[in-house]
């Protein structure tokens, strides 16, 4: 990191290569469109390289990169949503639904649930969708999501709750052959852990 900040191009490239695959994966999950993902990741890297000097701790690079990417993704999702609302787009062209992104070993039931989830996520406001995706698709902790969204953990939780409710309503409406379970206790444990890390921030 120190070398990269000093303008060492090899170090910069090495730094980018270390973080970009994960970043591309996460952005891809949020956008579902390869071309848009590539654009967003490139914009993110360019922004990051331009502001590398302003980064305080080298260990924060990954989270900082994600927060830049999230801003780009948010903008794109909002634009996409508006275009759909005003009829400029009849469908999210180029976007691959989750069930088409699944691994070859995924079962038919998992594919069905992914399809349901994809339709539910499409109905969410961009900020809620991003929070939900980072939490349940990527498995990030609340504190990481709060950093990426540049908000408090409380706000993240509120968004997740709103998104959960919408997903549940959607699943019920579709009478999907799946049930949603949020009472496994592990969520509460995670929340407690994250809240304690938050140190009272709101």
């Amino acid at each position: 990191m120190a070398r990269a900040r000093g303008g060492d191009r090899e170090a910069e490239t090495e730094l980018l290569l270390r973080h970009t695959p994960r970043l591309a994966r996460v952005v891809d999950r949020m956008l579902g469109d390869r071309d848009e993902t590539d654009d967003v990741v490139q914009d993110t890297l360019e922004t990051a390289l331009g502001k590398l000097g302003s980064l305080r701790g080298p260990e924060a690079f990954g989270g900082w990169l994600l927060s830049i990417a999230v801003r780009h993704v948010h903008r794109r999702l909002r634009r996409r949503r508006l275009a759909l609302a005003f009829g400029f787009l009849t469908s999210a062209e180029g976007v691959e639904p989750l069930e088409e992104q699944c691994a070859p070993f995924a079962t038919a039931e998992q594919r069905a649930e992914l399809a349901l989830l994809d339709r539910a996520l499409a109905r969410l406001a961009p900020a809620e969708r991003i929070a939900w995706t980072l939490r349940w698709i990527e498995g990030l902790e609340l504190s990481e999501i709060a950093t990426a969204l540049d908000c408090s953990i409380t706000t993240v939780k509120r968004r997740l709750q709103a998104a959960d409710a919408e997903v549940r309503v959607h699943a019920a409406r579709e009478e999907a052959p799946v049930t949603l379970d949020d009472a496994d206790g592990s969520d509460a444990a995670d929340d407690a852990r994250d809240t304690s890390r938050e140190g009272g921030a709101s």
Partner: protein
Amino acid sequence: MKFRTLPRRVADVLDDRDAETRAHAIVRRTRRARRRKAPLGAIAVAAASLVTVSALAYRTWRAPEPPETVESPVVGRSSTTLTAGRRSFGPRSWTEVGADTDATLLETRDALEIVLTRGEVELDVRAEERRVDLDAGLVHLSAIGAHLTVVRGDTVRGDTARDDAVQGDTARDDAVRGDTVRGDGDTVQGDTVQGDTAQIDTVRVVVHEGRVLARGEHVPERARMLAAGESIVVRVPARPSSSTPAARPSEAPTEEEVVRPRVPARADASRRWRELADAGEYREAWRALDEVGMSREVRAADPEELLSLADVARRSGHAARAEEPLTELLRRFPDDPAAALGAFTLGRLRADQLGRPADAAEAFERALRSSLPSTLVPDALARLALARRDAGQHERARADASRYLERFPSGPRAAEMRAIVDAR
């Protein structure tokens, strides 16, 4: 929240959609875009343009002088001046300041233009900030006090930059006629016009001091800022043959010659596909590439460009055509860091899109033998095992899968590898 069949982390049942490979391509594009946007580059270009315009304005303002022929070229001595007439080589414009058997050291106080005709040339540029334009058959060094060493090359002809630089070949040939500088003996010859050919020439610019902006349609990404200690190799198509009799100095160029564009349409298309590829417009890039000819571009491309060519073909739906730049990359640049990535991409192409698992396995094996980025190694090893299995090489597939499991027991493709190992 938890779904009934989906894992707690949904991404565990999602494909990574080539994120690793795409990430490498994105990083490459970012680096290029960043180089293009470098503010220092813009400042250098602006400064160099100002210098060039000022020099041209100054020359235009001065009263025209009758053309002169080469009078007394003196060679092989330090601080000698090439007096070839102001129109072509005013004594103020090109000074030979030193020479030995390995190099010819030249210094220019005006914009300097060198026409490449044959062979390889290495320009050792000692400079403050300046610009080297490497266009079709030309090296145009524009800066006051520019200072370069022709290190190698047997047919470099020099000329000061001036308006007729945009004129036809005949006019230029005449203007620079008789001014061949030989790197091997510092001979400045009289009327000799070296045998120009249409073959590709190679120019290597090595910067020893200061910073140089190298620009031109054959420069990777069209422009590259070089700092002291950096170098660039550019393959430049030589200018067409000048075996036709050169026009007399006093003859004005014909209208056709005057309006002939300096950069041919083909070069425009060549530049366009790169720009479009960098912008991620692969379909448009393919169309531009089609105009200029894939094979032609492949022959002249550097390692990064070869990867770009493959990207354009693959992403525009012409997977089969992506094989040519990748195999060329492995053939011409086997030791370049890009070769490992090229081999990996070639393996994926052959396995996933061309249905040739045996060839794919060969490529993956090569990628693993090369310096493949560590993040791609697990995937390459897994793909090697799968390709061998699909090619019917079951024993070897099992061995590769075992190797994967030893190195990455909880890797993302461990389940698939176990299935290969357990298959009987």
